[in-house]
């Protein structure tokens, strides 16, 4: 792609080798939930930088708005009021793509080059190659990608790969007024997190810790949690996320076969897409995958 300085580590449904000549630094975004005030400046910055505007919705009796991630909301704040040991805590988690080292979305994706992992760790969707099948949605252990109703393409946080490519922090990190969003090399972010965790422990949060789940090989978006023993408290953050075994099965064992077959389907689907629209295409690919899985 044009964003050469990011270099490519892997591409969906592609067996030819990726670029390997250059070594880039592995990056990470660290979200310190304990420092977040829920102002949504990050949500606004995301909307502005990526030039997307979600609908003006309604209030649903909570602070959350928009209520969920969408093709036009790549990050949303999730507010949870937790009362334990006579203490009320307002836990506010910035939800969005975790940029997994082992990305289930990419593994599940049958469209060549629709999902790219750069060598710095960013997982990016290239919508021009997306066929709208929704497999990334199934493949993602964090329920992140969303298919647009307008163009049937999958969308999610790009970790501002365009900004990072020119040495800028993601828009959300730049906008956050409290420093709850930090950005840098993964190593530096882990060091920073360790300091925050020590501080939180001194303040009585014995279970404070870093969320960098190994089930997906670690992530390039990490959280500092005051209750790292109970990630579920934070609007259902999974304790041990891992890629669905189905995805590993058909992509792992039967990879070349599946790729070949799917390339055929993808080509065919293009034709179908033009004549019948995206939904039926997904159905067809689904059938194909089920066939593969059954083998």
């Amino acid at each position: 792609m044009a964003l050469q300085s990011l270099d490519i580590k892997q591409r969906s449904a592609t067996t030819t080798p990726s670029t390997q000549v250059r070594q880039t630094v592995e990056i990470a975004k660290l979200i310190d939930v304990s420092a977040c005030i829920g102002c949504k400046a990050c949500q606004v910055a995301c909307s502005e930088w990526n030039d997307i505007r979600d609908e003006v919705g309604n209030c649903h009796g909570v602070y959350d708005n928009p209520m969920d991630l969408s093709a036009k909301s790549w990050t949303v704040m999730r507010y949870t009021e937790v009362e334990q040991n006579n203490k009320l805590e307002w836990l506010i988690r910035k939800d969005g793509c975790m940029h997994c080292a082992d990305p289930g979305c990419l593994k599940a994706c049958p469209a060549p080059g629709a999902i790219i992992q750069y060598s710095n760790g960013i997982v990016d969707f290239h919508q021009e190659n997306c066929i709208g099948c929704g497999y990334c949605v199934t493949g993602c252990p964090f329920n992140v990608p969303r298919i647009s109703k307008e163009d049937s393409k999958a969308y999610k946080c790009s970790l501002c790969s365009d900004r990072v490519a020119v040495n800028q922090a993601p828009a959300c990190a730049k906008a956050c007024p409290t420093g709850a969003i930090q950005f840098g090399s993964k190593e530096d972010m882990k060091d920073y997190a360790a300091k925050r965790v020590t501080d939180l422990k001194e303040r009585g949060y014995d279970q404070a810790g870093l969320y960098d789940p190994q089930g997906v090989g670690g992530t390039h978006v990490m959280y500092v949690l005051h209750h790292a023993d109970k990630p579920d408290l934070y609007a259902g953050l999974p304790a041990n996320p891992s890629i669905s075994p189905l995805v590993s099965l058909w992509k792992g064992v039967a990879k070349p076969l599946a790729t070949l077959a799917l390339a055929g389907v993808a080509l065919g689907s293009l034709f179908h897409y033009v004549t019948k629209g995206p939904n039926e295409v997904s159905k067809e690919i689904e059938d194909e995958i089920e066939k593969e899985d059954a083998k």
Partner: protein
Amino acid sequence: MVAKVCGTPKEAFLKVCEYIAETAAPNKTMTNLYALGWTEHSVGSQNIRSMAIIQLLLGNMGMAGGGINALRGHANVQGITDFALYAQNLPGYLAVPSDAEPDLKTFLEKKTPKMLRPGQMNFGQNLPKWYVSLHKAWWGNAATKENGFAYDFMPKLAGASDVLSIFDQMYQGKVHGFLCQGFNPLASVANKKKVSDALSKLKYMVVMDPLATDTSEFWKPHGEFNDVDPSKIPTEVFRLPTTLFAETSGSFTNSGRVIQWRWKAANGPGEAKDDTEIMATLFLKLKDMYAKDGGAYSEPIQKLTWAYRIPTKPSPEELMMEYNGKALADVLDPKDPTKVLVKAGDQLPSFAMLRDDGSTTCGNWIYCGVWSQAGNNSARRDNSDPSGLGQTLNWGFAWPVNRRILYNRASADPSGKPWDPQRTVLKWLGDKWGGNDVPDMRPDAAPEQNVMPFIMTGEGVGRLFAVGLMAEGPFPEHYEPFESPLDNNPMHPKNPKARANPAARVYKGDMEAFGTAKDFPYVGTTYRLTEHFHYWTKQSKINAIMQPEQFVEIGEELAREKGITAGDKVKVRSNRGFIKGVAVVTKRIKALDVDGKKVHTIGIPIHYGFKGATKPGFITNTLTPFVGDANTQTPEYKAFLVNIEKA
């Protein structure tokens, strides 16, 4: 007693007291940051004064990280306040003359503070220099020694002119025209019905604003959100679109008194004009009309200094230079008159150069130094912080004289040694004061001279006991809000006169509009959301996406009692009207135990209205009472009585 009055659990309150008391140690400091949660009460000034007393007692004044600090609600509230937002002040908080002072001499004698203890600075004694320089800035050559520097040109104060009093006068039909500049009073002043009725009594209103505000359409029906009959409203409304802060250069003065220049980023849309251009054009037109047609006492208008390069467009740079002031004649050293301190024609470096003989001009004495011969100091952008205390002395310019911490002499002990050597703000260097800030002290006042740190008082010390300065007594006192769920003030259960602030001002008709706990058993309080900025950002698409619709917050217990679930539409009423919104049911609002009574609170964000990109909503201030703090007249938005039901 505190737990009884405010419902805070005793142990929690004592814990906070302990934390606060610990900061009495020389190496521990506490800052107090307050905002509208403290000021929007009929006892707002008392709240702040109580904390100021605590900070004085703990020795937290003048220290790095100490003090009592107002957090401003806009980027430039400090700036507009510095420039006479309140008509009872002139720029730089100078007193406004009234008819009781017929001439300059009487005025200055009356207003210049007297030294109350020998050897103190009593800095206010310089008032004549500041005041005369202001007249010279405004009326130039027309301000002469002989005519008391055009003392008669200065309009004399004619009673209260705070926002509540202006709208009350309007309500009584005493105001004909209203120039509404960057202000949305229909939404932001208490008791919308009264404000709407008041605006309906005007002959005309001119709205200068970047946005089509709710106020500019107060006459227009917007369903139940603005239920008015335009055929009964004769007011003629003109809208003059202005540019926004990003569409013009100028400065912001922040809560820390740091004046920061900002640069124009974009052109305004359509026919929008800078506020200064609109005001200048209006002024020149009036001046012209007075010249042609005559009129009563037009001299102050005809003689007003107006030396701008383009008279209809005074530039922000020209204005800032004018506020700073310049020497009209050589300014000489009083100790050695052969020495010229500032050459005639030069910009002044500090207010120490101001003179009361008409040889200097200054549009706002506290801003003196912001644009010296060195140029625009507010545009400086060096963020280096050599002391590590956050003292970025070369970033922008803080009034006064680039001093960042007021009363910083109090950061050192009487002998001049810093109380906390790890965080030295000031110290006595043997022959002068030095350290990490501009000394708030005569630079050569040796510690033995006992010149006290509080240089703005006549006695040089902080005032725990203040006579004649507050509308109330010399010590703070607790009073219940005007609308309270309690029948009595728990501090004075037998004295009905001490229930609510006896020094507060209540206009005719407003007392009757107060509700009682019998009909309105819950406490309403209003506030802002981080996603929105007052009533502006409901006009902006992205902010509207973040919080699209008006809501009201209630606790779980009250929700259960009333059969309300999150997401239900509810109606909140006060004795002055009603609003509707979506119910947010939260653990964050708990019932309080106040004086043995269970008190529920209903939280009501203010941002919504009938104009904008959000879902149309009600004006929250439909509910609030028309009464304010006894000193500042800031309305009591934080505590009033309401009832709630499912809509």
